[in-house]
């Protein structure tokens, strides 16, 4: 059961990190700087990834317990709820017939629609983990290498986004609603 928890949290953290990487790649490949709502969804996704990461780190230390799993799941749920609210707002902004939406669609849907799907799936995964605590017993030893690589990947994604936001906003406190270029350059 404990190994299943480690596996589930590795899958959740990597899914969120890969979605963030895909959004980052789409930003540069399509040449479209992200809007403030897009960036807030990325921020919520980064925060949601902290939940499974905290479980992996506890597991790597050999201190995986029901408490650690519950804290990790609650972090993922709180961040995903906020992210789902932000994504829903952006979906509703572009829901009128004839509205082309913001940015280029990917696999038939815009990135904010995919974000909403990802946040709902993250909430479901965290809720299932909380339900599964009924059968969780004792502590488990995890894989420190996986936790280290996951933390490194998430750290790099966050640092990349920080540099991108600074390039996009320049020295302005807020981003423009519809950014078309990087203000720092």
């Amino acid at each position: 059961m404990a190994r299943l928890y480690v596996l589930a949290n590795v899958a959740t953290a990597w899914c969120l990190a890969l979605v963030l990487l895909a959004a980052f790649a789409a930003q540069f490949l399509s040449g479209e700087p992200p809007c403030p709502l897009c960036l807030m969804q990325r921020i919520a996704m980064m925060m949601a990834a902290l939940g499974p990461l905290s479980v992996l780190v506890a597991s790597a230390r050999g201190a995986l317990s029901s408490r650690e799993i519950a804290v990790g799941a609650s972090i993922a749920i709180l961040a995903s709820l906020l992210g789902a609210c932000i994504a829903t707002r952006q979906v509703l902004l572009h829901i009128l017939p004839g509205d082309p939406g913001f940015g280029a669609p990917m696999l038939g849907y815009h990135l904010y629609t995919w974000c909403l799907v990802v946040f709902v799936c993250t909430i479901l995964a965290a809720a299932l983990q909380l339900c599964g605590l009924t059968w969780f017993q004792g502590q488990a030893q995890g894989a420190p290498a996986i936790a280290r690589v996951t933390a490194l990947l998430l750290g790099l994604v966050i640092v990349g986004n920080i540099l991108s936001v600074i390039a996009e906003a320049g020295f302005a406190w807020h981003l423009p609603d519809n950014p078309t270029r990087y203000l720092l350059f």
Partner: protein
Amino acid sequence: MILAIIMLIILASLIAFWRGSRAAVPLFLLALIITAVVFYQDMTTPLTISL
């Protein structure tokens, strides 16, 4: 710039989780609250994008 500051707090929270610091969850909650406030400001500010 505010979004970069939030991301910096998230990075600090990640590092705190990795080091096993007790500041990790408070840092996460701080980032969550600031993001919620920025989102609220965004919702209550008139839009300037083209619909």
